[in-house]
């Protein structure tokens, strides 16, 4: 493992300045980054440790928004009673990540900005993510790869919290050498056709500071359903973050975002439009499932994700709408 310096800035201004040093990277929990350094996937000279910045691991309820610092750990996010009652989908998503040990150190911002877990990338193949000019999964072992939005890279976005944040209409606060900016979740993530080497629009030296979630309208309920290949500790094979605004039996509005199927959290606007203003019956939920996979473009070994996605959307929507 290449040796590196560790610095602990006390505020964002200092952190941004330190991140402009050559070959510097930001660290939250470090649960994934240190492994990548050991595997020579990243070879930083300086780790800019953000955990010493005060107040960035707080959850604050404002008049019209829930503000969550990027350094809140996944464990505290999943255990915060206020988050669980008003933004259930986010608490459930945080709870579904990896293992208790990883959730104890892993942060929200780190989870959202996590690099892909494609095995070609993680094994150092010269793919788009490693600075190369090809995606090995297209003709290779692609059972966990994208069925939507792929090309030229076919990775799936690895985060569980990202679909939840997009379903909750989160605003992402970012800071960097050119100052701070806030952008909607939908504009934070970038498809490989925009930039095949990366998964989001963070410029060099920019970091995700935190997120702001609007408070739910009355009658809103939400849930995160994650399909794993065993009982614990895998990334989502397919997952669905579903937020429904209900008036008795009628769904006034819906937001549905899938994980595990595309290089970014994959929103389903057509399905949302189908459900809006209707009573959710088993038949309507089945239609939602069918519509969810419209335009799916599976590779040789991930065709099973199409019926799986259909079932996940159908069951999660129906279960959430009819839950007592």
């Amino acid at each position: 493992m290449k040796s590196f310096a560790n610095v602990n800035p006390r505020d964002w201004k200092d952190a941004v300045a330190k991140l402009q040093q050559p070959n510097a990277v930001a660290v939250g929990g470090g649960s994934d980054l240190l492994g990548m350094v050991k595997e020579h996937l990243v070879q930083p000279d300086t780790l800019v440790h953000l955990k010493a910045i005060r107040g960035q691991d707080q959850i604050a309820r404002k008049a019209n928004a829930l503000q969550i610092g990027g350094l809140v750990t996944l464990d505290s996010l999943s255990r915060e009673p206020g988050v669980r009652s008003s933004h259930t989908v986010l608490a459930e998503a945080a709870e579904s990540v990896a293992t208790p040990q990883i959730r104890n150190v892993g942060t929200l911002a780190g989870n959202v900005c996590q690099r892909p877990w494609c095995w070609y990338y993680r094994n150092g193949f010269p793919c788009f993510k490693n600075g190369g000019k090809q995606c090995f999964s297209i003709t290779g072992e692609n059972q966990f790869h994208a069925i939507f939005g792929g090309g030229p890279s076919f990775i799936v976005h690895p985060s569980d919290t990202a679909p939840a944040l997009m379903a909750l209409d989160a605003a992402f606060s970012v800071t960097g050498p050119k100052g701070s900016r806030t952008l909607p979740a939908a504009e934070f993530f970038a498809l490989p056709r925009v930039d095949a080497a990366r998964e989001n629009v963070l410029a060099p030296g920019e970091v995700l500071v935190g997120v702001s979630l609007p408070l739910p309208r009355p009658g809103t309920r939400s849930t995160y359903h994650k399909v794993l290949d065993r009982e614990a500790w895998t990334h989502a094979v397919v997952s669905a973050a579903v937020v429904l605004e209900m008036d008795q039996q009628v769904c006034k509005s819906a937001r549905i975002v899938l994980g595990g199927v595309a290089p970014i959290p994959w929103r389903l606007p057509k399905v949302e439009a189908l459900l809006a203003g209707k009573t959710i019956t088993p038949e309507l939920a089945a239609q939602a499932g069918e519509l969810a996979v419209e335009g799916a473009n599976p590779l040789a070994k991930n065709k099973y994700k199409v019926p799986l996605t259909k079932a996940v959307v159908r069951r999660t929507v129906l279960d959430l709408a009819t839950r007592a």
Partner: protein
Amino acid sequence: MGHVKVTKYVAAHDSGRVVNPLTAESQVKGGATMGIGMALHEELLYDKASGLALNTGYYGARILTHKDVPDVEVIWVESEDPYGPFGAKTLGEPTIIPSPASVANAIYNAIGKRVKDLPISRDKLLGVLA
């Protein structure tokens, strides 16, 4: 959908005279755990062009986690083996021999369809159920 959970595993072994029941039982539980993992998840994948392994490491190997391991009940069919030391027979490796086949049979019993190559992963199960 296409998810398999082993809820209970019963293993009966003729091991001659069981000299140390505690460690022998642990041996069976270990074999069952490896065998269920072999039946459902574990498979070493390679890049065909370079020959490099893809799903490497503790995470990539997809062994069972604590949450996946079922309750394992061990039954001893004791006998006296005149050729073994103190009447004992072998135990270590035989514990894994029947486990992938018994998981495969349990799946067949549950869904009425056979998957004939390991691991019996979700994509293969959804394939035979489609």
